[in-house]
């Protein structure tokens, strides 16, 4: 029996005169991995930022478990709410004035640091290094470690393979697949990379013109008759 974790109801968001999300509806289910795909500028990242509470939506509501309409949360409640998410940002967003140990300190519980570095395939020697001394792939791994260290209820992956060469991208995809399957964590992935979708998505939502144009099981994505999505997939793969 699937259990709803996040309910997005008629959510709209505009910037000046540009409508990015247009009465969008989407359900995210517990312990499932959902990939949101769509062209650049289709509003994928805006949608996840609204879900996390980093952006306020103009209309509609987003419910998270027993929390209704997260737009109405106070500053303190919003802070607690945000801590339920672990996020791997597009550019990893590691604090560049701090070394990796200090970066991970923001999230780690005692003694779990060694274990988590093993899980993401990083040696302990990187702990004293600064983000600028690491490759983009390593930064992504550290970002992923930071995201899962605090044992979040929902993991958000924003373009996890962007800027990586195909070999490293494949490694990151496999790493995420293993983590998601092992931890059975609710995951929302925003991606352009169809490899990521095939690798670890249970469900896929195709976003276009501010609405979800197609939603279904990842393994049925190629059977879809939605012309926009077929065009999008063919253009990418």
């Amino acid at each position: 029996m699937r259990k709803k974790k996040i309910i997005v109801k008629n959510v709209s968001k505009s910037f000046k005169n540009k409508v990015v999300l247009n009465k969008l509806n989407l359900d995210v289910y517990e312990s499932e991995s959902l990939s949101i795909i769509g062209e650049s500028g289709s509003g994928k990242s805006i949608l996840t930022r609204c879900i996390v509470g980093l952006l306020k939506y103009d209309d509609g509501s987003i419910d998270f478990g027993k929390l209704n309409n997260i737009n109405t949360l106070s500053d303190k409640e919003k802070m607690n709410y945000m801590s339920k998410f672990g996020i791997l940002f597009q550019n990893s967003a590691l604090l560049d004035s701090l070394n990796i140990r200090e970066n991970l300190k923001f999230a780690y519980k005692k003694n779990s640091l060694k274990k988590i570095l093993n899980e993401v395939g990083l040696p302990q020697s990187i702990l004293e290094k600064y983000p600028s001394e690491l490759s983009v792939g390593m930064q992504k791994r550290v970002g992923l470690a930071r995201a899962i260290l605090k044992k979040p209820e929902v993991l958000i992956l924003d373009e996890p393979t962007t800027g990586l060469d195909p070999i490293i991208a494949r490694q990151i995809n496999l790493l995420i697949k293993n983590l998601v399957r092992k931890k059975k964590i609710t995951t929302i992935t925003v991606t352009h990379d169809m490899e990521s979708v095939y690798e670890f998505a249970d469900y896929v939502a195709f976003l276009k013109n501010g609405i979800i144009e197609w939603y279904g099981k990842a393994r049925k994505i190629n059977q879809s008759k939605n012309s926009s999505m077929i065009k999008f997939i063919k253009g990418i793969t």
Partner: protein
Amino acid sequence: MTRLLSSALALSKRLLNLIFSFFYSIGEIVDFFLKCVKYFITEKFYFNIFLKQFIKIGFNSLPVVGLTSIFTGMVLALQSYTGFSRFSAESAIPNVVVLSITRELAPVLAGLMVAGRSGAAIAAEIGTMKVTEQIDALKTLSTNPFNYLIIPRILAGIISLPILVIVGDIIGVLGGYLICVNLLNFNPTVYLQNTYNFVQFLDVFSGLVKASVFGFLITFMGCYHGFNANGGAQGVGQSTTYSVVSSSILILLMNYIITSFFFRL
């Protein structure tokens, strides 16, 4: 006639937009300030970050402030001599130097130098963090960016600027002393005696009050513009420019306001 009317309408629309955006900016700045106060009172204070910023803003600015002060003191002594020697009032030079340095030049020049050095650096650092989503990352890691980034910097500015100004006062007076004693043949003991006898507590105190206010303005404007940066490298550059320009103008404005306040005392 219609063309004249439409251009008058367009002009008034632009003027209204300008007024609206001015008041909107004021509102945003006030909101930012109130948030700083609220989170300072209600949430965690990062003492380590404060110390780091204190060293960055205060200690690391010592060479710049010291050099500015010594040259200012030296120039002031020379220029005063040019004027005062015309009516045989050379003995007033130590008084003019110490008064100008403590009340006016040390705080204002230190403020402007720190605005260019540290204010710009604060805006650039926080602006870069904003456009690279580091501030968003902090939020999701249960860390309030106001407490972690903004408040320690503002407090470091408020506390370090007066200390810099005290050092600037001493070095500035020393600059005047060096010129008067070595170049203008003043008696060193008389010069120092004159300086010491003439200067009053209020002269130094008013300079320190100014320094504290300037320290607040520099760090606050740096943080505010950095925190509101957007649009990548260009946005960060713009926030740095805005930070230096706005804090420099505010320093000069507040200098007048504080001077006129102490003038009445």
